[in-house]
């Protein structure tokens, strides 16, 4: 059964200076003067606290919106949930197939044809070649790209490229779907088709986590929201309340 459980998860990013980024400097030791200065300012181990003591439990049926200003830790949390950042502190348990739709063009090659790209994108998402080939008819119908699919993707317009990436990326139904901002694409007509397709996908997944700044999108897709601030979850509750809480905080700041 799909679930995600975070217990006391903290994520720190080491901040490397030009000095600590180099092997030579690290092995030979920092020059003495430099070392003294770094120590005296108490910055020996410089790191950014991206997430602090996050506890979270996601169950089937959860449609979670992530709210927070830039730098609050939304993207980092999504990456922890996807398994990319394995926590050094705290624990992550999850069950089910996770898919992150953060970069829907990942694995695509502009010099390859549309058909090749369907297969490449499919394999990058974890399909077998055969399963990826099986996507072709539905992608053909959805994108309406016709003969363009036989041409290298570099000849596509931005909208066509997005349509193709979108079509393939939304063809695979995971148990847990993670999104950083809603993916929307192309002209008005395509946008409504895209909306139907993403609605269909979201209905089928067991858990959705969606980070967004758009209140309308959050309200229409989510049934639970987390407000993040400085790497902490400061509120966990219904979407309306969370949005109100967040807006109030922002208002106070201004």
């Amino acid at each position, binding site marked *: 059964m799909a679930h995600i459980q975070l217990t006391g998860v903290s994520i720190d990013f080491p901040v490397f200076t030009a000095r600590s980024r180099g092997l030579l400097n690290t092995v030979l030791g920092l020059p003495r003067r430099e070392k003294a200065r770094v120590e005296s300012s108490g910055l020996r181990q410089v790191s950014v606290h991206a997430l602090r003591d996050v506890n979270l439990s996601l169950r089937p049926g959860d449609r979670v919106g992530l709210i927070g200003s830039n730098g609050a830790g939304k993207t980092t949390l999504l990456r922890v949930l996807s398994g990319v950042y394995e926590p050094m502190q705290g624990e992550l348990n999850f069950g089910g197939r996770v898919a992150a739709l953060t970069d829907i063009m990942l694995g695509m090659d502009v010099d390859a044809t549309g058909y090749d790209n369907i297969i490449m994108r499919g394999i990058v998402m*974890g399909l077998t070649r055969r399963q990826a080939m099986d996507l072709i008819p539905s992608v053909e119908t959805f994108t309406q790209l016709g003969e363009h699919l036989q041409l290298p993707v570099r000849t596509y317009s931005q909208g066509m490229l997005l349509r193709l990436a979108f079509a393939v990326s939304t063809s695979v139904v995971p148990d847990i779907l993670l999104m950083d901002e809603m993916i929307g694409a192309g002209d008005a007509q395509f946008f409504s088709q895209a909306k139907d397709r993403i609605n269909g996908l979201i209905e089928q997944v067991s858990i959705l986590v969606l980070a967004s700044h758009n209140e309308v999108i959050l309200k229409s897709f989510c049934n639970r929201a987390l407000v993040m601030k400085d790497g902490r979850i400061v509120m966990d509750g219904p979407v309306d309340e969370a949005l109100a809480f967040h807006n109030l905080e922002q208002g106070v700041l201004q």
Partner: protein
Amino acid sequence: MLAWRFWCFMGWNDVAKQYRRTFLGPVWITFNTALFIVAFGLIGAQLFKYPADWYLPYFCAGHVLFGYFSALINEGALTYIASDAFLKQTPYPKMAFVFRTVFRCTILMLHSAVIVLAVLLWAGRLGDVQWGALLGASLMTLLAATFTVAILGGLAARFRDVTVALGSLMQVSFFVTPVLWVPDQLTERAQWVVHLNPLALFLELMRSPLMGSVPSPSSWGAALGVILLLALIFFWQYVAIRRRIVYWL
């Protein structure tokens, strides 16, 4: 084996990409290499006073293999750095990227390997090739290459000067590794250059079967020793940094 579908495909696609950009793709590089090998091979034979039908295959095999080692080391360092978009989106097993690099470099090397076979055929030495020993040597080289790529990839992700340092190191290694010259030409006192050079070790391991002789037991032993050492470093490093790599990208 660790998302083999993914790395086989990605490695293969890296090669296919080059074919897509130009019609001849890597074959073009093969032509270049062939031209260089024939040109220098004939001159080198005169310079070092070896018969051309011995020196040309010797240099040819050396050049192709050294190019392979050099690609493995230089591109190995970029293994994780160049795949950051993938690593930041999906928790692929880290080793998949190592295999991808080794796979790609090997496929590209096999393009040039055709020249080696052609030169051996021309020199009438194709019949002397010790295929069994060559297979064994290739497997050992692949094993060593996999560990090396993994170690360098992790190191270079953390310390960004490693990539640059390796680039210059490999340029120098070309001259201290017997690619152009033959170890016998060195004086007794300078032999350590070859004996302490792991690149020379694996080069000889693969080149001597091509030249018709089976490597000595001490060569096999030394290669095994290097592999064990690399394996040890690899496991130690893998346990220590496997989870941290993504944080460094």
